[in-house]
């Protein structure tokens, strides 16, 4: 009775994965192409990787992006954890619905609006209070934190909701002060969620083109901005090489995370 439909479901599943991975595989394959024509195979070569290693502009932008991403992820985890904790554990308080809305909205808000809104704010602030002077890494970081803290808050929220509130009550009952309960009990228990939140915020920041383009200033080009301007001019095997490196890094990261999660599960 239930033989035919699963076949259909599974073939669609297979198609879905092929759809997801075929472009990535083609990127990787042609990053080793001898020819500059990305789509015509002309023999194996790693010359685009060495070209990538010597592309000062790209490497500089990667360094800028990396610094912004680390700053952003760290700030976003702090702010997002505060927001998630307030939303889950404080019951009803004044400003709760405002906070909930401002956590929910950035998740679906189009980038162009977020970018434009942030930029106009920075311009107005500079006019009024003289800060921030000009735009660059600071303004990009602030704009990134604003939307990526929402993702962290959502992750923290869903972890806290599943956390037995009597664990925190038990610690209070045994004489620990609220701030101590947070650091000794809550924080260790939601640590995996914080790590996931940090990585997500890091990736979101590293990945963003639109918001960075709006809020960036001279001398602060992020990696996506440089990639975008190069891609607009046409396909380049160097970008393929860069993509391969990124995919490799992400895969390694995910495999490590998966193994450590499995170890943790086996441990307990």
């Amino acid at each position, binding site marked *: 009775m239930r033989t035919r439909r699963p076949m259909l479901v599974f073939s669609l599943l297979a198609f879905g994965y092929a759809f997801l991975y075929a472009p990535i595989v083609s990127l990787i394959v042609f990053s080793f192409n001898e020819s500059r024509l990305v789509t015509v195979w002309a023999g194996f070569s790693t010359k685009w990787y060495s070209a990538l290693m010597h592309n000062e502009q790209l490497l500089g932008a990667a360094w800028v992006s990396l610094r912004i991403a680390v700053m952003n992820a760290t700030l976003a985890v702090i702010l997002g954890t505060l927001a998630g904790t307030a939303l889950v554990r404080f019951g009803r308080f004044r400003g709760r619905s405002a906070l909930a809305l401002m956590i929910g909205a950035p998740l679906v808000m189009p980038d162009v609006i977020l970018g434009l809104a942030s930029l106009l704010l920075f311009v107005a602030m500079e006019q009024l209070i003289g800060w921030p002077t000009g735009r660059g890494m600071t303004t990009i970081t602030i704009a990134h934190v604003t939307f990526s803290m929402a993702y962290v808050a959502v992750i923290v929220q869903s972890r806290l909701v599943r956390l037995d509130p009597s664990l925190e*009550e038990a610690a209070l009952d045994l004489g620990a002060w609220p701030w101590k309960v947070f650091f000794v009990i809550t924080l260790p228990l939601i640590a995996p969620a914080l790590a996931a939140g940090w990585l997500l915020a890091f990736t979101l920041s590293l990945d963003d083109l639109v918001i960075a383009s709006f809020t960036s200033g001279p001398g602060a080009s992020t990696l996506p901005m440089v990639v975008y301007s190069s891609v607009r001019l046409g396909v380049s095997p160097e970008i393929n090489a860069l993509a391969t490196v990124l995919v490799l890094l992400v895969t390694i990261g995910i495999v490590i995370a998966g193994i450590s999660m499995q170890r943790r599960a086996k441990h307990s």
Partner: protein
Amino acid sequence: MAGPKPALGAWQDPSAAPLVEIRNVTKTFGSHYAVDDVSLTIYPGEFFSLLGASGCGKTTLLRMLAGFERPDAGRLLIGGEDVTELPPYRRPVNMMFQSYALFPHLSVADNIAFGLRQEKLPRAEIRERVAAMLELVRMGDFAGRKPDQLSGGQRQRVALARSLVKQPKLLLLDEPLGALDRKLREHTQFELVNIQERLGITFVMVTHDQEEAMTMSTRMAVMNEGRIRQIGTPSEIYEFPSNRFVAGFIGAVNQFEGRVMEQRDDLLLVRSDVAGTELRVRTQQAVAPGTPVVVAVRPEKVLLTTEQPPPGDNSLSGSVEEIAYLGDVSIYHVRVPGGALVEAQLTNRARRAVAPLTWGDPAWIAWGADDAVALLE
């Protein structure tokens, strides 16, 4: 550490100082009264149970004692000190949680030591007291384990040790045996009472299981819809329920509605249509003729015979409608002419395959005036 259990309950000693005083405490959640004007006094050394169905307010009352909920009105005193405004970490009270709430990232020993570390006690003393507690709950071999490597019964004992290690004046237990299976539960009941008597710490336990409350407590309070319906020792509550709710909530009971005809000293004559006759019941209260009343009698106090019993206080004839054989006892349902279905419980003393009575047989039921209670509310 603990003296012998006083022959006289502390609640009967007029000079005893109460440990817990709950004064007219009310707590609402929205428009719902979780706890409605409750007053209660608990004395040192008691094992006190709050008994009621889920949603009756017993857990809210317990959580207010622990400091997790703040009463809307009324005061809470512990050891004579007003603790109404005190946060949980400032109260001389500890709680054992229904879920045990063992910290999953800490070992058994670290869980137990947690409370002592908050007091910044010297390491040596902490180690000593944790070891003593592990010994008390027979968990010495498991000190290094994490909570998820323990069985349900072991977790329960760790939770108990963790809540006792600070030697609180008062230990609150929220359904402490709820997560255990039946067999383990019976065994643990005695263990818990044993520990309580050895340490002399006052226990307040929340439970929905009347058997548990009856076996373990010195006194108990029966709660319903946010109010306490009766406070007393288990036998007082079982034998002398003060109202229809308590009589019906604890054990099985036959209830006959009727009206008081007259009172002769402490004997009440009640006309009951459902019983189809006049009932006699002993009472201490003065009741005016015409007052509606319910005569309540426990099934095991009802005598069931095939022949007419000698004239006594109450006897009714009827026919057997249902029989339930439960092994140690059998339960008979007898329909009396007034329409009531009376439950009688007989101990199966002799071993026999065939019951002397069967469906449709005429039978007599009887009980004494002392065996029933008259309930006015």
